């Protein structure tokens, strides 16, 4: 079966982000960027499906500016067969991304769309569900296990209070939770080889997708910082403070 994996270029998860002084966003100049961690997990799962023989072709796709080619190169180095970049200037909103993904999924006639459950920048957790809706396909969100058998996807989902097992008709959309797998490290020779591979360029127009933003950012601000606390010397002092100062015990 053919698998489409969506990847997003985001500020690296180890970076302490800075809010711009004018409140228009977060500083991204000279900040380390990398593939969204959840997308790496989705990609790793698809690569494992290739290795197991359940995936015949693995296509990686992103929507972003030219700098986003780097996340596609790491996808190719990890094991993707092909890469597609849909050229967009502004960071697109989830519904727009879902429309792009649905269009690519239809054009490529894929059987499975694998995505991360959320991007660590907008924290939206929407794109996979929206893509499934636009395609009319079932969804397996927050997946910690995925097996394909008899034309169905069996998905173990992380839910509040435990785990739910779903069986989905294929084609389907699955979003990866952290516990789905441990992504492999990409080795340098694979990275060098991936640099020579072509990346297909595509536009929202060619896919017939309207990229008009539907939600307007008014302001980005720093959260109110917590006031600095105190160090206590021992358990007795801690309990005294909790009881007589904070009143929580």
């Amino acid at each position, binding site marked *: 079966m053919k698998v489409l994996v969506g990847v997003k270029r985001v500020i690296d998860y180890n970076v*302490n*982000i800075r*809010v711009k002084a004018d409140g228009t966003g977060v500083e991204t100049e000279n900040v380390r960027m990398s593939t969204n961690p959840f997308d790496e997990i989705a990609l790793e799962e698809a690569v494992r499906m290739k290795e197991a023989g359940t995936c015949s072709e693995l296509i990686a796709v992103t929507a972003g500016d030219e700098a986003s080619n780097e996340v596609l190169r790491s996808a190719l180095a990890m094991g993707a067969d092909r890469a597609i970049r849909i050229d967009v200037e502004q960071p697109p*909103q*989830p*519904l727009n991304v879902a429309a792009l993904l649905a269009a690519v999924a239809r054009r490529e006639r894929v059987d499975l769309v694998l995505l991360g459950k*959320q991007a660590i920048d907008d*924290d*939206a*957790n*929407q794109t*996979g*569900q*929206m893509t*499934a*809706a636009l395609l009319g*396909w*079932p*969804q397996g*969100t*927050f997946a*910690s296990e995925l097996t394909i058998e008899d034309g169905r996807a069996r998905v173990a*989902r*992380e*839910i*509040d*209070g*435990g*785990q*739910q*097992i*779903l*069986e*989905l*008709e294929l084609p389907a959309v699955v979003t990866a*939770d952290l*516990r789905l797998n441990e992504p492999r490290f990409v080795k340098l020779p694979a990275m060098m080889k991936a640099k020579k591979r072509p990346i297909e360029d595509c536009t929202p127009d060619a896919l017939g997708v309207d990229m008009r933003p*539907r*939600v*307007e*950012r*008014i*302001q*980005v*601000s720093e*959260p109110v910082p*917590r*006031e600095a*606390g*105190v*160090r*206590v010397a*021992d*358990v007795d002092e*801690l*309990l005294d*403070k909790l009881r007589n100062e*904070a009143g*929580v*015990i």
Partner: protein
Amino acid sequence: MTNTILVVAETTADTIAASTLSTLTAARELRGTIDILVAGVAVEAVAESLASMADVRRVLVAEAAHLSGGLAEDLADLVAAHVDGYTHVLVPATTFGKNLLPRVAALVDTQMVSDVTAIQGAETFVHPIYAGNANETLRVLEPRKLLTIRPTAFSSEVLAGGGAPVERVDVGEPKGQSREAGLHVDASDKPQLESAGVVVSGGRAFGSADNFRLLEDLAADLNAAVGASRAAVDAGYAPNDCQVGQTGKVVAPALYIAVGISGAIQHLAGMTDSRVIVAINKDPDAPIFGVADYGLVGDLFEILPELREKIRVLRSEPDSELVEA
């Protein structure tokens, strides 16, 4: 224009989830008429009890077997079929709502807003981004506003005094695209992590699942819920659904005690709105001390038993009263 609001209720077994009550509080802030949609099987009692709450105009009941497993395919069709006439649709930002509402949003061609923590007007909402390290204020240009509501940001107090009618609605046909093949839930009688008044949370420093019991014992003494860092969950010390943080649960208890947790930004995203934070860690430079009201530097294996012992003494005093959920 008057706001007309549809709240999609989350129910667990045959009770109203606390997250639904928080979502109702958020809906009240929009100052309009509020309808509540309840879907599932045997939801009669839940519907009656929602109908008795203040400010509710109608409770819509969709009772059918295919709506009971929380399957997004069937539920999203149901909700999408009922959004007409509403200016706002609100769902709790739990795994239930996060799974459901984006699907509804795409079906009705609307860009939604996730994890709303403040409502500034009929079309202006605040929500955290970058693991809670920034707050984004958005104006939604869509004719209909679809929002998931972060439960810890709104009160889950029950306001009684309503008497709304309960109406049955058309349930639609099952899609049959998905099927629940199994469900494993933690059946403990301990306080729920998201709604507990006290949370004690452990990290990698415990070293083993056996040692993690020290924390569970402390939790039992405090009538607290047990939380964990991702490191502790990945190491198998605690189950997945205990995880607090950007990718786990967001909690805001009166007291959060972090034991052996360094305080990575992903963890802080899930607990920095707690009223009082205590950190117990042997590394005096651990980032958790940057957000803790009270920090105690030391070995958790010495501190926890002493803490337990002294809390027991405190609790045995007649005037002692612990914070309840």
